[in-house]
C-alpha cells in the first residue's frame, strides 16, 4: 500500500486491553485503518474508471442490492450512473494523498478529497457500506450508495 493514512480517531480492535493502549496512544490505528483506506481507494479508482463490477464487488451485498433497486439496473451498471447524480468526485478521491481514517470496533470512515466512504468489517477484511456521500449538519451523511 503506497499511501499512509492520517488517523484522527480510532479504537482499534476494541476491548479492555486496547482501551489501555489507546489511552496512551491517541492517534493509534494499526493495520485496520490502512486496510480500510485501501478498500476505499480501490472503490474510488473503480468508480472513476467507470468499472461497475469492480466497484460493486467491494460493496456490502445489501448496499449493492440497494443500488440495483434504486437505479432499476444491476449494481454493475447502476453504480456508475450514481456518480453523476452525486456531488462526489471519485477521480479526486482516488488520488487523495492524505486520507483521514477513523476506525472504531467494526466500523470505519475514510475521508477523501472528493468523497467520504463508510466501511464495516466483514470477516478478515472491509466492505463498503456507503459511498458517494455528502456531509449534512447534525444529520447522517447523504449517500448515493448505501444499504436501504
Amino acid at each position, binding site marked *: 500500500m503506497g499511501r499512509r493514512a492520517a488517523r484522527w480517531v480510532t479504537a482499534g480492535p*476494541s476491548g479492555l486491553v486496547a482501551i*489501555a493502549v489507546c489511552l496512551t496512544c491517541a492517534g493509534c490505528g494499526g493495520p485496520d485503518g490502512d486496510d480500510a483506506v485501501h478498500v476505499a481507494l480501490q472503490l474510488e479508482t473503480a468508480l472513476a474508471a467507470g468499472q461497475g463490477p469492480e466497484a460493486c464487488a467491494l460493496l456490502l451485498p445489501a448496499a449493492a442490492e440497494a443500488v440495483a433497486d434504486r437505479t432499476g439496473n444491476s449494481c454493475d451498471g447502476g453504480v456508475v450512473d450514481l456518480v453523476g447524480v452525486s456531488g462526489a468526485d471519485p477521480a479526486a478521491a482516488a488520488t487523495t494523498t492524505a486520507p483521514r481514517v477513523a476506525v*472504531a*470496533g467494526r466500523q470505519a470512515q475514510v475521508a477523501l478529497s472528493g468523497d467520504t466512504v463508510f466501511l464495516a468489517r*466483514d470477516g478478515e477484511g472491509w466492505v463498503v*457500506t456507503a459511498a458517494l456521500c455528502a456531509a449534512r449538519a447534525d444529520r447522517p451523511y447523504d449517500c448515493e450508495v*448505501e444499504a436501504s
Partner: protein
Amino acid sequence: MLWRNGLTLVFLLFLLLSLVGQAVAGARLFDEEQRAAGLDPVGLLAYVGSSSFAVDLAENWQSEYLQFFLFVVATVWLVQVGSPESKPLDGVGRESDEEQRVGEHAGPGAPSWARRRGWRLAVYSRSLSLVMGGIFLLAWVAQSVAGAAAYSEEQMRDLQDPVTWWQYVRMPEFWSRTLQNWQSEFLAVASMVLFAVYLRERGSSQSKPVGASHTTTGVDG
C-alpha cells in the same frame, strides 16, 4: 474452609454468572443490530472483546466502586442516628490512636503497617478508600474510552461522524450513562442507612438486633 469464606465466594459466583448472562444477552443484541445493518453476526467471543461490552461493564463497575468509596469516607464524619451503618454519635472523625489501636497501642495481631508511625500508617489508615477510589477512577476512565469507541462505532454504522475521546466526555451520552448509574447507587446507600433504622433482619450483620430500639446507633446484630 469454604464456609469461612462463603460471603466472598457466593458473591464472586453471582458475579461470574451475571457476567456470562450479560455477555450472552449483549452478544445477541449486538448481532441483531449487525443483521439489521446487513452485516454478519460477530459471535460471543468477538462481542466480549468489543467496546460495546466494555462500556457496559465499566459504567456499572465505576459506579459501584464510587458508592463504596464515598460510603467508606463519608462514614468517618457523617452519622445517622439509629442506623447500624453509622458509627455511634460520639465517634465522629478519625478517632484517637488508642481507639484505632495503632502505633504503640497496636495489639499482637495488628497488621505490621499499623504498628509503625509515618507514611506506612498514613497510607494503611486510608487504604480502603484509596483502593476503592482508585478502582473507581480507572473504571470511569475505561468507561469513557470504551464509550467513545462504542459511540463512534454506532455513529459510523448510522453514517455519521465518529467522535474523539475529548468530544465524547463532554457529550450528553457520557454523562447520561454516568449519572444514571450514580443516582441508583446513592439511592441504594440512603435506603440502606435509613431503612436499617426501623427495619430488622434477624441474624444479619447489616441489621441491629431485632429488639434494639430505633435510636440505638452503631450496633450490628
